[in-house]
C-alpha cells in the first residue's frame, strides 16, 4: 500500500477501505467474505458496527437511533430477522449526562420499534480530547428464516435492480447540520430500521441479493457486485429517486448522491415480475418511493448509467470520499 499511514479516506467505505480490509484484515483473519453480516451456525446471523457521527443529533435521528438501525439493517440484509443487540459506549470525559440519557432513550426506542432486545453492553470513558464526544458500537444477532439464502452469486443477467427510496438524504442532512448551512426546510436523515421491509420483500418477490446503501453509496455497491459477479449493470438516472433539495445541495457542493451514504436505504437484485413486490413495499413506511432503477445485462462490462438526457457513461468505483468543492 502506498503512503503507509491511515488517511481519512480509508474510512470512506469506497476503494481505499476495500484495499485496507483486504490487505490487513482478510489476510490475518482468513475471512471468507467481506460482507457486514455473516451466518455462523444453526441459521444464526451476526453483525457488528461502530458508529461515529458528528453532530450526535441531526434532523431525523441521533447516534443512538443510528446505532440500532445500522446493525438491525446489517443483520437484515442477509434476510435474517434481528433479535438481540449488544452495545458499547465509549464516552469522552466531560460529556453531559443529560445528553447520554437522551441518546440512550433513543437507543431503547429504536430497539423497541425494530423489535430487538438489548441484552448486554460495556461502558468506557476516555480522557478529554481522546474521543469526539461519544462513540457507540453495536453487535446484532438474528435468525435466518427457512429457505432464505441471499448471495451475490445468485445474481443473473436480466435481473432487475430495485431501491426503496430517495438517495443522499442522510449525508446531506449531516452536512447541513454540521456546517450550519441552515437550509430550510432542513433535510432529514433517512435513518431507519428496515427489518420489516426486508421480510415483506422476501415474502412478495424473488430476491437474489440485498445490501444497505451506506458509506460509498449506491455506485460503490453496484461496482462491488459487478466485480464479484463479472456481470454488467446499467442504471437509469431518470428512475433514481432523489429529493429536490438533496440534489440542489449536492450540485452546489460538487457531490454526487449516488456516492453518498444513506441510513435507511437498500438495493436489491430481483428476478421475475416486480409489480406485486413494489405494490407491497409501498405499503411499508420505508418503501414508499420504491423503484426499479436498472438491470443486470451483458450489453456492457462494469457499471454504466444512462443520463437523463440519453448519454451513457461509466459509473466508477471511487477510491475515497468525494470532497466538497470550492463554492
Amino acid at each position, binding site marked *: 500500500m*502506498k*503512503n503507509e*499511514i*491511515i*488517511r*481519512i*479516506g480509508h474510512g470512506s467505505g469506497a*476503494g*481505499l477501505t476495500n484495499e485496507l480490509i483486504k490487505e490487513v484484515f482478510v489476510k490475518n483473519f482468513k475471512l471468507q467474505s467481506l460482507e457486514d453480516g455473516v451466518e455462523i451456525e444453526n441459521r444464526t446471523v451476526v453483525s457488528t458496527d461502530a458508529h461515529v457521527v458528528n453532530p450526535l443529533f441531526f434532523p431525523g435521528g441521533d447516534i443512538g437511533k443510528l446505532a440500532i438501525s445500522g446493525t438491525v439493517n446489517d443483520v437484515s440484509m442477509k434476510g435474517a430477522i434481528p433479535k438481540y443487540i449488544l452495545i458499547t459506549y465509549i464516552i469522552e470525559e466531560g460529556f453531559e449526562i443529560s445528553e447520554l440519557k437522551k441518546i440512550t432513550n433513543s437507543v431503547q426506542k429504536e430497539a423497541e420499534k425494530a423489535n430487538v432486545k438489548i441484552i448486554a453492553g460495556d461502558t468506557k470513558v476516555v480522557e478529554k480530547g481522546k474521543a469526539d464526544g461519544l462513540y457507540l458500537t453495536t453487535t446484532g444477532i438474528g435468525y435466518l428464516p427457512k429457505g432464505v439464502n441471499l448471495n451475490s452469486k445468485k445474481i443473473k443477467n436480466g435481473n432487475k435492480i430495485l431501491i426503496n427510496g430517495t438517495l443522499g438524504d442522510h449525508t446531506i442532512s449531516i452536512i447541513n447540520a454540521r*456546517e450550519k*448551512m441552515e437550509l430550510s426546510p432542513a433535510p432529514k436523515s433517512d435513518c431507519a430500521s428496515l427489518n420489516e421491509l426486508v421480510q415483506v420483500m422476501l415474502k412478495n418477490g424473488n430476491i437474489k441479493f440485498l445490501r444497505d446503501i451506506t458509506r460509498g453509496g449506491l455506485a460503490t455497491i453496484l461496482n462491488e457486485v459487478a466485480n464479484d459477479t463479472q456481470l454488467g449493470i446499467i442504471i437509469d438516472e431518470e428512475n433514481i429517486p432523489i429529493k429536490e433539495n438533496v440534489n440542489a445541495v449536492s450540485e452546489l*457542493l*460538487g457531490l*454526487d448522491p449516488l456516492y453518498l451514504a444513506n441510513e435507511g436505504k437498500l438495493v436489491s437484485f430481483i428476478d421475475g415480475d416486480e409489480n406485486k413486490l413494489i405494490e407491497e413495499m409501498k405499503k411499508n413506511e420505508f418503501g414508499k418511493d420504491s423503484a426499479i432503477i436498472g438491470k443486470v445485462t451483458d450489453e*456492457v*462490462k*462494469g457499471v454504466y*448509467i*444512462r*443520463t*437523463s*438526457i*440519453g*448519454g*451513457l*457513461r*461509466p459509473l*466508477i468505483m*471511487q*477510491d*475515497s470520499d*468525494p*470532497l*466538497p*468543492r*470550492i*463554492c
Partner: protein
Amino acid sequence: MNTKNFRNPQLINNLVEKIKQYKEPISLMEVCGSHTMAIGKWGIRNLLPNNIKLISGPGCPVCVTPMSIIDALLDLKDVTIAIFGDLMRVPGENGSLELAKAKGLDVKIVYSPIDALKLAEKKETVFVGIGFETTIPGIAYTIKQAYEKNIKNFSVLTSLKTVPPALKLLSSDEDINLDGYILPGHVSVIIGKDAYNFLPKDYNIGGVVTGFEPADILSAIARMIQQVKNNDPKIENEYSRIVTNKGNITAQKIINEVLEPTDGIFRGIGIIPDSELKIREKYSAFDAEKKYNIKIEYKEDKSGCRCGDVLKGNIIPPTCPLFGEICTPSNPIGPCMVSSEGSCSAYYKYERIM
C-alpha cells in the same frame, strides 16, 4: 430556478440533431472546470459526432494553484489551516495536506471563507484563498470583515486568478488551434459578458457565455458552430438569465477595494501577466505571505505530470502516460486528478471505457 426545462430530452434531441448537421471538424474549449464536469456527468461527449472536439481549459482553481503554496502550508506550525475540500489531496513537492493532516497538521475543510474567519475565534488561522472571479468577492469580503473587526489571528494565503488574461495567453499561442470558447457562466456573473470583447477584436475568435445545464452547453456549441460557419466571431450570451453585459458591479467594487492585479503563477503553465489578484497594502496585516514570510514561486513539476498541457488544451488526459495507472484520484500525481473540476478527474470518472 426550474432546471428541468434545460434537461428536457426533446429539447436536447433537437439541439443534438442541429449540431450533427455540421460536418467539418471544429475545436471548442470549455474554459471552466465545472463545464468539463457537466459534459462528463451528462454523457454529452457520447451524444456528439466525432468532428466536434471539446477541449478542457485552465478554469480549475485547484489545478493552477502553485505547488509552492502547498509546500509552504506543510511548513506552517501552530495554526489552523482552513481550506476548500478540493485542495486536500493536491500533491506538493513533499506530499499533500491530507497526508500531513493524518500526521497531525491541523487542517480543516471549510465551505466558505467566512467559516474560516470563525475558526480564528479559537486559534490562529490561515485560510487558503484560491479561486477565480466566482470565489474572489467572498474572499475579499472576508478580508475586509477581518480588517473592520480587527481580528488579529487571521490571515489569507492567496492564489486568486482572473480568467481574461489566461484567455489572452491561450489565444495568442500558435500551437493551440481553437475555433471558439465556451465561456464560464459563474465567472461571467461577476465580470460580465463585455469582459471578453477583446477575443473577437484582438484575436479574431468568438465565444459563448453559458450555464451548466445540458441544454446550456449544447446551445453554446450550436451557436459556436453558427459563428464559425458565418465566419463571424463574437461574444454571445446564452446565460442571459443571470449574466449581464457589465457583470456584478458591487462584487467588482469589493474586489477592487481589497485586491490589486499582478502577474500570476499558474501551476504547470508558468507566469501569466496581470492574471493574479493580491491583497492591497492597506490590508496587508491579513496577507499570510507577509505574515509568515512565505515565498510563492514557480516550480517545475518533476513528477512527469502533464497538467500544464491538459490545462492549455494541448493534450487530453488519457494521453498522459500516468493517467489511470499510476495517477488516480486517491493517489494523484497532479492536481488535475484531484479537483472535482480537474479534467483528469473528469475523464477518470466519466469517460473511461471499462
